């Protein structure tokens, strides 16, 4: 089904996943990927015509909650975990629209 992953498609995946890859990783990963693709490509041989996909481990239906406010302001506690905050805001390098 899939050709082994070349460096450019690996870079594309890394962009999607937002992970910077080192030269060493770009070098090492294709072989590992190749092996994984070999494993998962076995699925292509299975006849699944008429089989409904199973998303959960068994067919559950969704439970809903009442429209109630159940939380209080914990900003100070939550922001004590943040790398950078000011005036109640989380700070990041400038966002360009």
């Amino acid at each position, binding site marked *: 089904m899939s050709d082994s992953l070349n460096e450019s498609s690996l870079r594309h995946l890394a962009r999607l*996943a937002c992970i910077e890859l080192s030269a060493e990783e770009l070098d090492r990963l294709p072989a590992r990927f190749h092996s994984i693709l070999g494993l998962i490509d076995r699925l292509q041989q299975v006849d*699944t015509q008429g089989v409904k996909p*199973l998303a959960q481990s068994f067919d*559950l239906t969704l439970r809903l909650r009442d429209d109630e406010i159940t939380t209080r302001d914990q900003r100070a506690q939550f922001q004590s*975990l*943040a790398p950078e905050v000011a005036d109640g805001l989380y700070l990041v390098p400038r966002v360009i629209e």
Partner: protein
Amino acid sequence: MNLDDTSLRMLCAGLRERTFSSEELTQAYLQRIEQYNTRLGCFITVDPERSLSQARAADIRLARGEGGPLLGIPVAHKDIFCTEGWLTTCGSRMLSNFVAPYDAHVIQRFKEAGSVILGKTNMDEFAMGSSNETSFYGPVHNPWQLTHVPGGSSGGSAAAVAARLAPLATATDTGGSIRQPAAFCGISGLKPTYGRVSRYGMIAFASSLDQGGLMAPSAADLAWSLGTLTGFDERDATSVARPEEDFGAQLEHSLEGLRIGLPRQYFGSGIAPGVAQAVEEALRVYESRGARLVEVDLPHSELSVPVYYVLAPAEASSNLSRYDGVRYGWRASQYGDLNEMIARSRAEGFGAEVKLRILTGAYVLSQGYYDAYYLQAQRVRRLIQQDFLQAFEQCDVLMGPTTPSTAFRFGDKGSDPVQMYLSDIFTIGVNLAGLPGMSIPVGFDGQGLPVGLQLIGPHFSEARLLAVAHGYQQATDWHARVPGRGEQA
């Protein structure tokens, strides 16, 4: 107090009869941790002061005659469960500074039961691994042979229980992460039915597969504490509301007439001789107690590994997107723009296996591949689930080896990830079908490493599984064996 030869029932009785206090008991375990943890690497965080203060609080309640079966009992928690005020790392550098601001539902239940938090146990990073080698905090060593892995991802919990550094530990199982390390470390482990245990506050790996569970020396210990672990939680939309069960009370159950299904696919080639032999002997024990062996078929079982390695990475790639260095967790110190800040924080915060799985997940969900991989895997997942449901029309419980081999040496699986993945071949199907599964120790191989027997039951049949395991453990004493913990003999 002989911590090598005790049970939760005995510890509970000791506390109630004031033979020892929770503080003394906790202190005794903390001393053992102090003594062995450097060698074994079971715990990422221990905080004796805090544990002892919880123990003293439990002692007050004990004195008042309050509480249930776990009041005052020290319990080790896998570092995947958010624990308020405790460092909760999930085995990752990404969360190396994350002091959880809230309790996971599981932690909350154990706190309400009055148990003492003994520490947070080591694990494969974000539960991705079968050997505990992917932890940012270093490997865990198998207490039977320090040169060998304890299994994963709940390797810290398994080794801690095996070495009797804790009488009970929480753990999680996404593809075998309770049963495989339980087998490798010679203890009893239970992964309940999907939906039994709330996933709230349990750091997500693959949401449709993750399930919290327990590890202890014996099935009786598991039954003693399972009621504390389970229970409906409205904060988890997949939590299933069930009437409360007293698992301990259902433990004594005759094995007479029990129909044990032996999946053909679990007894093929590729099973290490030592494993095959121990499992055969265990089955003979069951037969001698009146159980009947039935051969059954799980025709798609071989496909469980590829299905899993599509679905779990897909879910994981999305679940782990929240770690972006904005609100908490690791942030790179050097970066240019916003995108680089996020991409580098993730590059530095995640280890190699986690990155590999995130990239795999992104791949199988990406445009043009979704149908062929993700949807196809979900369809095969249904076939695998149907196999199990059909098998349970012929038997009450399925049995087979938990793993094809016993614990392997560090580094033995080489650099090919699939070699490692294939070691989960017998455990993964249970997660895909959402079934409850156990592993119990049934002997040793030629190297003196423990062998695990896997027990699989229909949905919500935990009580039955525990009784079946307990029946075996009454006839044998493998579960009572204690490893050398690396001490010179």
